[in-house]
């Protein structure tokens, strides 16, 4: 029961992180919010695996951890090109 409640709390945390995606000023800030989503999603899935007894959710958490890392590296190496100025306020 406790782990279910904590999973909901982390989900609310995630919703609060959405504010940074909207505001952002640079695209790096938005990417940081995506990193937050990755780490929090892993925690939520582990808590849910404990609460519901679904062992497969731990594998899903593993995939999330891997995907968050690959996404961020792809962002830095490919997507964040020189078109964007440093201190812009969109």
């Amino acid at each position, binding site marked *: 029961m406790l782990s279910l409640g904590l999973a909901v709390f*982390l989900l609310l945390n995630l919703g609060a992180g959405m*504010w940074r995606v909207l505001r952002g000023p*640079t695209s790096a800030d938005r990417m*940081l919010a995506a990193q*937050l989503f990755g*780490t*929090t999603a892993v925690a939520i899935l582990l808590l849910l695996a404990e609460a519901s007894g679904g062992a497969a959710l*731990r594998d899903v958490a*593993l995939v999330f951890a891997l995907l968050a890392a690959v996404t961020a590296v792809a962002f830095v190496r490919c997507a964040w090109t020189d078109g964007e100025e440093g201190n812009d306020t969109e």
Partner: protein
Amino acid sequence: MTLSEYLSAALLVGGCLFFLAGTLGLLRFPDVYTRLHALTKADNVGLGLIVAGLALQAASWAVALKLVLIWLLVLLAGASVAHLVASSALRKGIRIWRR
């Protein structure tokens, strides 16, 4: 409840507090470097505490080992991503915040 269940619950709640601190830092800090500092450290510690709390209740050693492996992967990924984003931001000329 046994002692280990109390300990596990305390670890889980503590981990969630670290996640709250990380999100607060991401929302309130002034530039991308300070946000990186808040996010990557607080969240990885929070995940570590949650993993420790869940590993105490784990049914078998294999499950506990898997939880720890997931945490180590997230740690490794978080550290390298933080370095990549910070050095890339520095190269693009995003100024460091000063009071």
